[in-house]
């Protein structure tokens, strides 16, 4: 974790116990590149990172929530809701078949969607911080409500015909690198600085490490929690916009069980579900492990059934081998 400094001389053991998951990741990449020569091609690498970006961005918000001993189950459904909202605001033309359809500049549509993400996240945060209900339940409720609302908003149908200026966010490139990768990078830097270099981040760790101590030190636990979930909502909205732009459509079925992949990325990245520990760079590694696995198995043409089995086994194995293993819970 970024929070931990290596004590005494750096030994192999200390290195492994700090960077074990990175070693596992590198090992996985080596194995995959042997089994599929194209794996390490520049094109495939951008490919993987672009694919990872959606879950990767969500998982950074989840990391914040989990560090406070929380969780966010609503991200997948929030992606669905925000994707249909941003899609109905970014269509080339009004669509009379659709319950909602408004034509407006892309910048405004994006701003509205980000705001929606922040608001939904803040609702999660308020329920858990002020309503004192477990974040599991608060975000489970949001998960159900957001998906229902998404379906209701479009009567269960996808929303296509989006402006080129909008889809460019998901399909365009700058300096030959796809925009989603740039955005992933930017969000990563933002989240990393927030978590490790600001007062807010410090308070996040304090709440997760020992909520009572945090209170006694005068930290406003409730406000901080609301901010945490609002930030997670913001990142979810960014993801939703990317996904919508990338697929040229919004759909109330989007994001199904993304929350589990996001949580898995976070935990593989060493964030402890019992709170107080975690970091963004490792969360990125966690997301990359899952992304590389999916990509590698598709590249090798592994049978769909075996893919699932292999994925489960490898995720467990990675955490099992990881020397930084968190305690249970």
């Amino acid at each position: 974790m970024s929070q931990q400094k290596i004590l005494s001389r750096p030994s192999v053991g200390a290195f492994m116990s700090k960077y074990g998951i990175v070693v596992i990741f590198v090992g996985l990449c080596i194995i995959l590149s042997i089994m599929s020569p194209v794996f390490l091609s520049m094109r495939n690498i951008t490919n993987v990172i672009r694919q990872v970006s959606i879950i990767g961005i969500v998982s950074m918000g989840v990391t914040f929530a989990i560090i406070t001993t929380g969780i966010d189950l609503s991200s997948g459904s929030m992606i669905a809701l925000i994707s249909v909202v941003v899609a109905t605001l970014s269509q080339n033309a009004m669509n009379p078949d659709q319950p909602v359809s408004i034509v407006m500049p892309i910048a405004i549509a994006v701003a509205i969607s980000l705001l929606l993400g922040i608001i939904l996240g803040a609702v999660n945060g308020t329920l858990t911080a002020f309503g004192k209900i477990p974040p599991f339940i608060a975000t489970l409720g949001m998960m159900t409500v957001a998906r229902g609302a998404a379906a209701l908003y479009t009567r269960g149908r996808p929303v296509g015909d989006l402006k080129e200026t909008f889809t460019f966010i998901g399909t365009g490139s700058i300096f030959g690198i796809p925009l989603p990768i740039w955005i992933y990078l930017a969000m990563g830097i933002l989240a990393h600085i927030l978590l490790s270099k600001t007062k807010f981040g410090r308070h996040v760790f304090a709440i997760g490490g020992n909520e009572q101590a945090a209170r006694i030190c005068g930290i406003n636990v409730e406000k901080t929690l609301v901010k945490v979930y609002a930030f997670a909502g913001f990142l979810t909205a960014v993801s939703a916009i990317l996904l919508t732009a990338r697929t040229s459509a919004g759909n109330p079925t989007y994001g199904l069980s993304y929350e589990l992949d996001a949580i898995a990325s976070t935990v593989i990245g060493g964030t402890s579900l019992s709170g107080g520990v975690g970091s963004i760079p490792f969360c990125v590694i966690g997301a990359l492990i899952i992304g590389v696995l999916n990509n590698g198995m598709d590249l090798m043409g592994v049978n769909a059934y075996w893919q699932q089995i292999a994925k489960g086994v490898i995720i467990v194995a990675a955490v099992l081998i990881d020397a930084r293993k968190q305690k249970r819970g």
Partner: protein
Amino acid sequence: MNTEYVLEMKGVSKSFPGVKALKGVDLAIKKGTVHALMGENGAGKSTLMKVLYGIHQPDEGEIIFKGEPYEVKSPIDALTIGVSMIPQEISPVPNLTVASNVFLGKEIISKRGLKLLNQKKMVIETQKLFDELGIDIDPSVMMSKISIANAQLVAIATAVSYNADLVVMDEPTSALTDKEIDKLYKIIRDLKEKKNIAVIYISHKLDEIFSICDEVSVIRDGEFIGSDSIENFDKERLINMMVGRTMDEFFHKEEAEIGDVVLDVKNLTLSKKFEDVSFTLRQGEVLGVAGLMGAGRTEVMEAIFGYRPAESGEIFIDGIKAEISEPSDAIRHGIAFVTEDRKQTGIFPDLSIKDNIIMPDIDAYLKNGLLNGKKIKENCQEQREAIAIKTPTLEQLIKNLSGGNQQKVLISRWLLTTPEVLILDEPTRGIDVGAKSEIHRLIGELAKMGKSIIMVSSEMPEILSMSDRVMVMFEGKCSGIISREEATQEKILQLATGEKLSL
């Protein structure tokens, strides 16, 4: 307004479900004085301080601070107005560095640019603070890596660093030994004399009260009993006010008949913790174990109990070699272990007193494979009466008991396993005089009944008055074993600091 006082609390009351913890308590603290707040376990001292610090809201009562009405909704308010506190249960954030813990809630932020944390400056400031207070801890080390004693010192430093007008110290020395306590005295004197800061000092160790405090207030059962300057007190009067009757602070153990060797520990070693520890324990004997903080006493006891088994060495019980690789082996061999850290390794906070008591020995309460509620109730009730556990009912969750009463529950837990060897690690830490005296009597009675007892303690008078023999540890090694007759404070201190005994 009387400007002589920094704080006046008038008629403060506070109830919890089923308990009236404070009944109209008055407390007045003069500026620049050290004020002892005394009372038995569960008297309401911590509750009163939590009300002051904004953790609890009072049901009724008035608080005046520096001549102004004082209303706090949370610790943030208290800190802003000028009250800081070292809570009784020191609770750092384990995965942050020491410096981050000290600056928690008041982080230093770089003036320029993005308002990011100034990590370096916080470390430097912490180091400065520690130097000033004479504390020797690396500010950039993880909090989880330092001992409880050091954590307590960090908590003291943190509370002092707020520049408050009033610092509350709720049992600040419960995990400290004499050496660190002297440091604390110096810190308190500096606060008082150089900065004119008032201190509310809560402790069950009477010596401390007489060494450092200027005034004393006593509460009993949530009621204010009285307040006076320290000169007007002696130990007897103080105890009398707290307990409502006279008694000795330390029970003086009667001679018990000492029998055969029950426990024989040979060359126990666990790398980096302790080395080559050997001793014997006889039937009916109380073996005191003394040493400075971090001497490794706890680790030796944990090893004997199989919680953290030793790498090498042998343990013989009644002359037969015992293989102890986990606590259940030790329990089977008739060993019991009351640990030093109630919260970490003692209580099950969300379980009732009854469940807490029966846990190591559930087999004894099974009837046809199911728990026998009647037997549980009978046995627990017996214990409750025998060692006076103060609680409305045995169904009460243990987390709602005061610290001292929790400790009594834990002792009951192990007494009911009918052990032959009892390991008590700091058995009277945080326990009031009354209860302490009861626990000492209990130890004496158990010895008389033929039980063998190892008592790890950092309180010299306790060691001297209770032990038949004293083992002293220094840096993980047994530096000497002396008999009751030979034992003096000086000798023990010499051994504990690694000096040779001067004859």
